């Protein structure tokens, strides 16, 4: 009798210890990354960084203002394409779950999610850059949208599936057409979860560099035209980090810090939304 209890306690503490170890193994790298970037980047963050564009080679100072605005534009554009496709695709999957088309969509989304992002960039290059005869913000946004779609689609689908069928039936039985029921009951009930998925997909593409390399290309100057190359933070960080100038390295670290902070904030918001949903 005593023996089984001690054995059980032993097992208990063993498992607790290994869980703590696993937690530490996850948290330590995250902490290291964050503190290292803090150390390297914090000193270079000043007002100039946020309001100036990069100075020409050799001059010190300057900032990444165009990169931040460019990234914001790219993400906004990618979201306008990617979120509706993902959300409506998910609605289709949930409403017509068993059909052959829906299985094809699900499979395509899974494959798309697994495609290395540089390949996604190449696809956008072939589809848009080549025919349009030039790198463009649009091509970059499409590449990012291609990455967002499967993330939004699958998370939204999971959330929609959790909406009880009884609510859909209640709405339909009131004489509400299926499409209205989809939007106003099913999607509505899953709003928070869907928002979480959207935020996570934005956090994911905010830091993507590879798909922008030969689509948005990057730009040393301001650009607002969608048909022209545009600056983006990850690209600037990449270019500055590999350049042989001390001053540019500092900018790269500062940029990395800003980017990581934004992504951190996005993930936290996503978590907060996810959690408040469980409570209500």
């Amino acid at each position, binding site marked *: 009798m005593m023996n089984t209890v001690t054995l059980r306690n032993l097992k208990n503490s063993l498992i607790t210890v290994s869980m703590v170890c696993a937690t530490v193994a996850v948290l330590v790298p995250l902490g290291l990354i964050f503190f290292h970037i803090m150390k390297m980047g914090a000193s270079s963050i000043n007002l100039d960084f946020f309001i100036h564009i990069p100075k020409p080679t050799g001059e010190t100072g300057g900032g990444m203002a165009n990169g931040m605005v460019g990234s914001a534009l790219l993400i906004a554009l990618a979201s306008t394409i990617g979120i509706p496709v993902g959300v409506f695709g998910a609605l289709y999957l949930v409403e017509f779950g068993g*059909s052959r088309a829906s299985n094809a969509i699900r499979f395509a989304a899974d494959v798309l999610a697994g495609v290395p992002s540089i390949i996604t960039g190449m696809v956008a290059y072939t589809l848009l850059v080549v025919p349009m005869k030039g790198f463009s913000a649009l091509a970059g946004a499409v590449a990012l949208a291609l990455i967002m779609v499967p993330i939004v689609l699958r998370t939204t689908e999971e959330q929609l599936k959790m909406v009880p069928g009884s609510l859909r039936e209640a709405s339909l039985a*009131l*004489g*509400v057409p*299926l499409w*209205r029921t989809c939007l106003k009951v099913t999607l509505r009930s899953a709003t928070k979860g869907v928002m979480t998925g959207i935020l996570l997909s934005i956090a994911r593409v905010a830091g993507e560099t590879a798909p922008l390399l030969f689509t948005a290309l990057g730009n040393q100057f301001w650009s607002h035209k969608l048909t022209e190359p545009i600056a983006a933070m990850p690209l600037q960080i990449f270019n500055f980090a590999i350049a042989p100038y001390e001053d540019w390295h500092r900018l790269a670290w500062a940029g990395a810090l800003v980017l990581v902070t934004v992504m951190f904030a996005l993930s936290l918001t996503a978590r907060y939304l996810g959690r408040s949903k469980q409570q209500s």
Partner: protein
Amino acid sequence: MNPKVKIDKLNVHFGQTHAVKDVSIDVPENTVTAIIGPSGCGKSTMLRSLNRMHDLFPSARVTGKVLLDGGDIYDRKVDPVSIRRRVGMVFQKPNPFPAMSIYDNVVAGYKLNGRVKKSDADEIVETSLRRVALWDEVKDRLKNNSMELSGGQQQRLCIARTIAVQPEVILMDEPASALDPISTLKIEELIEELAEKYTIIIVTHNMQQAARVSDYTAFFYMGDLIEWGETKKLFTTPEKKQTEDYITGRFG
């Protein structure tokens, strides 16, 4: 008088399962028809075919006719949405919209379909809630979330929501089975009152309930309609042995 709902050789299949077999019933206007029978005999399936709820399940196949005021609801030209506006449904488990207030739940049929004038909505909410005898219990907290109501109150709210859109027929699938005896009694009283204005078809497992609230009763067994007729007659002098065994409880 022509029946309000005429079920004519109705069959429902789910893949290989033949859930409702060649059923024909006439439901007169402003009466309560109870559907009884052991679990799995196709009561819910039958009921759901009366407002085309099966359209949502690709596996379900419905054949035969259901005439509503003489028009076949399964006619190709008929929009199922227009049928569901005329034939409302109350479900076994109370299912108010959890994100909506009590008030919004009552007018959900209007709000989900577009806009509704505030003054109209106010009136609809009050009359519907009065009808289901819920008004006095909730009139001071109409803006509160509907989930704070008790199960019985939630079910009456669902009935209010159903009658708010003024259907002609109300289908009820074991509306009181999840409720305590007092709430059940309230629902039963409500059904009798509603029958003055609506045609009601109710599925129930409770024999006393069927006897109390209904004018007509149909007894199902394994997808077959064994017998149907006036409730009094069916419960006192059933024609079929099977019916008698079931209503006297001598049945598996």
